[in-house]
Each structure stands twice: as structure tokens, then as C-alpha cells.
């Protein structure tokens, strides 16, 4: 029987080279870091829950997203699970932000 290895649990697998060069973080990356910190301080969820939600992204999505994109997806999922935001609120806000962004690009 083939056992399912979780996507993040990659010890011993070929992974290519590691880019150890330092790099700056984009403003949105600092923002999601701060939001995650604040939510944990307010006891909405802990680091184990964040990791569980990141690992549950699954192969493909997990591999395609950057580090803080994974955080953003996982934080969103946890806030939905805990009823802090509704899926409808999220969908409307995402549409609004996208509309504003498109208009800002035009002007």
C-alpha cells in the first residue's frame, strides 16, 4: 500500500538548490505577517492551525504559491472556518478591491 506523504513533509526528497540570498519583503507581505501576528495575539488561531491550513492547500497550490501567498490563503481559510468572515463578505470585498485596482491602473 502506497502511503500518502503530505506535500510539505519533503525531508529526503530532491528539492533543487536553495536560494540563501537575502531579499526585501513587499509591503503586502509585511501586512499579512502583521495581520497573522495580530490574529494570533487575539487568540483567533495559533501557529499549529496556521500550519495545518497551509499544509491542507495540497500539492499544486502549495507548490505554486509563494511563502506569504500560502499564509494569505491559510489565514483566509481559518477566518472562514471560525466565522470571523463569511464567504459572501470575502467574495464581495475581493470583487471591490479588484475593481478599484483596475480603475487605479487606468487612471
Amino acid at each position, binding site marked *: 500500500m502506497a*502511503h*500518502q*506523504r*503530505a506535500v510539505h*513533509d519533503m*525531508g*529526503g526528497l530532491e528539492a533543487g538548490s536553495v536560494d540563501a540570498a537575502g531579499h526585501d519583503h513587499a509591503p503586502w507581505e509585511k501586512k499579512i505577517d502583521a495581520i497573522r501576528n495580530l490574529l494570533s495575539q487575539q487568540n483567533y*488561531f*495559533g501557529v*499549529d*492551525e496556521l*500550519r*495545518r491550513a497551509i*499544509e491542507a492547500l495540497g500539492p499544486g497550490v502549495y507548490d505554486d504559491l509563494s511563502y506569504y501567498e500560502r499564509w494569505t490563503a491559510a489565514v483566509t481559510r481559518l477566518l472562514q472556518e*471560525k466565522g470571523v468572515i463569511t464567504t459572501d463578505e470575502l467574495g464581495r470585498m475581493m470583487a471591490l478591491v479588484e475593481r478599484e485596482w483596475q480603475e487605479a491602473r487606468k487612471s
Partner: protein
Amino acid sequence: MTSQFGEGDSVQVRLAFPPGHIRTPFYARGKPGVVESYVGNFSNPEELAFGHKDGAKLPLYRVRFRQLDLWPDYQGPEHDSAVLDLYEHWLEPLRAKS
């Protein structure tokens, strides 16, 4: 909860593959090792991962493994080893090889 294992005990990591948030690395499952030390009792991250904060604190151990046992194709010296932090429910007494 009192700790079941002590320093120097030969143990084996349980061969189990539950879904969820697991801190026991895939590569160590089913592998033999020796308890280096008992670290203390800590909340189970497998349950914390689902927001269950009220569970019992479980014994955590540092367990030393021979690299040769962890990696079948290991090329380094026989005495090379690695130490992993593992919770008691992932360990069982080492069974004698039949």
C-alpha cells in the same frame, strides 16, 4: 501523564500515516532509535492544529537515529546520527528483529 520511556531506551517510531497536521517526519516513521532525553510534557500539536486547546499535555522526547537507519542509501560514516523531537504516542518499544 508520566513518561513511559527513559534515557537509553530503544524505541521504534510507529508506522502510521493519518491525515492532519503531523510533526513526526515521514522519513522517520517505522525507524528504530534510542531515547536521548525526556524533554517535558507539551500540548499535542496534532490537536492544536484543529483548535482543540484543552487536551492533555503529552511527553516529548529527543530520539537519536543512525543516519544509516533513516536513509537506505546513506554514504556517510556509520556513527552519523540525527536527533528528532517526537511525542510519546508516536513511539513504541523496539521489537526484536525476527
